[in-house]
């Protein structure tokens, strides 16, 4: 299978503070690629660099065979990068339908007439259809997370970027979101998925990367990555019996 995304030695950060240090990894088409790592390890920064909110100081990002390192965020979105935000950022004074419509019109480069169907199907898929005329500012956290996904789907992405869509939810809600992600995978989306809940990640991803201090410290089959010494030490501390 061909690679949908390649990070090649990316260095990036905010102002003078460097967060990503020579980060490299590859995502294959059709894969659900999980990303774990302790707080501050640079996972969200990796997404910010990927969608163009920050510009890397060195390295290349290849998406779908094209070097996108210098492109602006709206162009990258139009090329097929759809991202959710860890802390949801809905357009609060617009209805859910309008939220997704913006994405379908601009990110999906559609006329409003065509975008309407796309928006509605994204809302259906994420279970928000019945609430579509509600103002986004009135939503609960679970629905805000769903709206993030619906909006990303509205842009017709080739690669879906999920940033902790399950964080902060109750157990029952987490199950809901997990089911949604499983549906998305079944629908054929390539996904890069940042999450903290390790057990779920093992079961739901095809490949797993663990980040620490802006680097990739382990990358491979999910079970192996979780059991690797590096990851065990990062998450559980040093084993005192050794």
């Amino acid at each position, binding site marked *: 299978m061909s690679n949908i995304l390649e990070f090649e030695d990316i260095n990036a950060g905010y102002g003078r503070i460097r967060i990503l240090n020579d980060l490299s990894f590859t995502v294959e088409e059709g894969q659900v690629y999980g990303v774990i790592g302790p707080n501050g390890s640079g996972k969200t920064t990796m997404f910010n660099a990927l969608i163009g909110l920050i510009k890397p100081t060195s390295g290349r990002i290849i998406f779908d065979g094209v070097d996108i390192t210098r492109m602006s965020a*709206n162009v990258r979105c139009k090329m097929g990068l759809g991202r959710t935000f860890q802390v949801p950022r809905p357009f609060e004074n617009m209805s859910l339908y*309008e939220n997704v419509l*913006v*994405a379908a019109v601009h990110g999906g480069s559609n006329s409003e007439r065509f975008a309407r169907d796309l928006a509605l199907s994204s809302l259906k898929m994420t279970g928000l259809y019945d609430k579509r005329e509600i103002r986004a500012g009135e939503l609960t956290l679970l629905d805000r997370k769903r709206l993030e996904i619906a909006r990303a789907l509205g842009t017709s992405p080739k690669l879906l970027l999920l940033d902790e869509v399950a964080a902060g939810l109750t157990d029952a809600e987490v199950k809901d979101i997990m089911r949604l992600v499983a549906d998305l995978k079944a629908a054929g989306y390539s996904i890069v998925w940042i999450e903290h809940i390790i057990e779920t990640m093992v079961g739901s991803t095809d490949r797993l990367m663990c980040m620490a201090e802006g680097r990739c410290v382990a990358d491979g089959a999910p079970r192996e990555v979780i059991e690797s010494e590096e990851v065990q030490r990062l998450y559980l501390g040093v084993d005192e019996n050794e």
Partner: protein
Amino acid sequence: MAKKRLVKRNVRVLDSLPMLIVCIAVVAALYVACLTGLASNNAMRYMIQIFLYMTMGEMWNLLSGFTGMTSLGQQLYVGLAGYSVAVATTKLQLSLGIGLALGVAVSVVIALLLSLVLFRMQGMYFSIATWVVAEAFEKLFLSWKYVEQGSGMTIRVVPYPKISEICAASLTLCVVAVAVVYLLLRTRVGLGLTAMRDDITAASAVGVNIFAGKLLVYVIAAAFIAVAAGIFFVNKGIVYPESGFGIGWTVSMIFIVTIGGSGTVSGPIVGAAIYVFLQEFLAHYPGWSNIILGAITILVIFFLPKGIMGTLQEKLGFEIFSAKRFSFARHR
């Protein structure tokens, strides 16, 4: 059933033919009143003020209420237009039309140049930077010999237009301004602008071209404010650096938009009418007028945070000139 309820709550009044007819009838009646001498000169003086402030209010609302660009420097384009008209008509003996066109041209060019710098800033920083730039222009004009420095320029237009003509022109300008704002918001660009206002980062992440959107709005606002200001100064007959580039212009626009309802197309229409009458009334209490205007603004923000039209529309469940999109076929 749910759908029926949704439709009922959000009837867009302009969609109904009667509303459109009412709008056209009102505008036509105003034209007739101007041009047939039905309105007294005094009435027309008020009308001119209202129409010009409406135009400026609509533009400031487009910037702040719909796009999230809270500029405190729109007086820059008021001043540039005032001086353009003065230079064209009085210094160069050109016609008024050329003067107004020059004002628009200068404003658009300056807006394009400034956008390169100003759009690097967001929120409060953008607001302050726009103000500083306008102040800088005031200082420039205060010391610029060609435009008579601090003593200002008189504007002599030959032949001087009749007040009824000025009134009709102002009305035309304000109708076009409202139409442009409304139609722009109905386009895909307008949809993106509204998203930008709510969250600029998220908007860029879903594919909205932020720079293009901002630029379009900023240039449109500069152009319309320039025409309105040009007409204003012809009517006034003189322009000073302080009267052209004073922050008072933007304060008026903020008042009009806040009172009327930020983020509603109908808000500035109502706000401008209230502002002009209030100002007239408060002229009897010199020194107090700004305090009273300020107090009214604070009261409105406290009790009607969405302004008069915003609150009315919410309470009564209708919207005039709404750019809102609905997920179902339009209600007829």
